[in-house]
């Protein structure tokens, strides 16, 4: 493998890992459902960048672009469905805080 291309890949990889950390931290720490979606988006960006950099490093840039287009389509559908679910949850529970939603659901179960 060309050393210049290898250097490109390994110089990108720390940033991709840090982007992954940002997304994961957001998902784990937040209690707001919309902010969980923001974390998922950041994770998707990291995955997209990884695929493109891997494609550029291995010479399969056309294949990487095809995969990224598929990834973007999946991303849009996931975010749209999740946003719909979040709106449904808000209408049902009047809150997006996962602690409150859990509390409401627990109370509902104990009432039954």
């Amino acid at each position, binding site marked *: 493998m060309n050393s210049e291309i290898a250097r490109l890949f390994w110089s990108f990889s720390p940033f991709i890992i840090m982007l992954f950390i*940002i997304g994961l931290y957001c998902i784990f720490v937040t209690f707001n459902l919309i902010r969980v979606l923001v974390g998922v988006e950041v994770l998707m960006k990291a995955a997209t960048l990884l695929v493109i950099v891997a494609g550029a490093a291995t*010479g399969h840039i056309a294949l*990487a672009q095809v995969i990224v287009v598929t990834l973007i389509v999946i991303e849009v559908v996931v975010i749209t469905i999740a946003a719909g679910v979040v709106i449904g949850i*808000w209408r049902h529970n009047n809150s*997006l805080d996962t602690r409150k939603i859990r509390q409401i659901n627990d109370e509902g179960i104990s009432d039954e």
Partner: protein
Amino acid sequence: MIVNSILLIALLCVALWAVMTRSLLRSAIALAIVSAVLTMLMFRLHSPLAAVFELSVCAGLIPVVFVSAITLTQPLSTKEVLQHMRERLTRFWYLPFIIVSSGIIFTFIHLSSKMPLPGAEVDKDVRILLWNIRPLDLIGQILILLIGAFGILIIFKEKKENE
């Protein structure tokens, strides 16, 4: 390489802003900027088709979905946001520290090319690849889009019945 580094650092900073800002609208705007910066990186890595998709869909459509969700839900009032700000800060102040320290660690570790990577190959044109070699991807994409459309329909249909 310097331009790539600047873009990558900008990408990280804007992603941090998207995660840490207290306003959800600002988060949505920051995500659009993340997509725009990623688009620039893709152009620099010779991926114009994916870059155009990223710019039009991820920087254009997804923020609209986010803003719609935020507007329809109206999660917190300004007063409540201010009340939750301190609590949020206690949860999120570790993040910049973690990112900076992991960046320092990766700089000293020197991720290198010791791990084997396949050799460089020259691909065919992306259109030929998409239409002739990977046509099943297109069918999958159409199916996923249909699933998305039907999913949204089902969600709002249930809501109507509940009303």
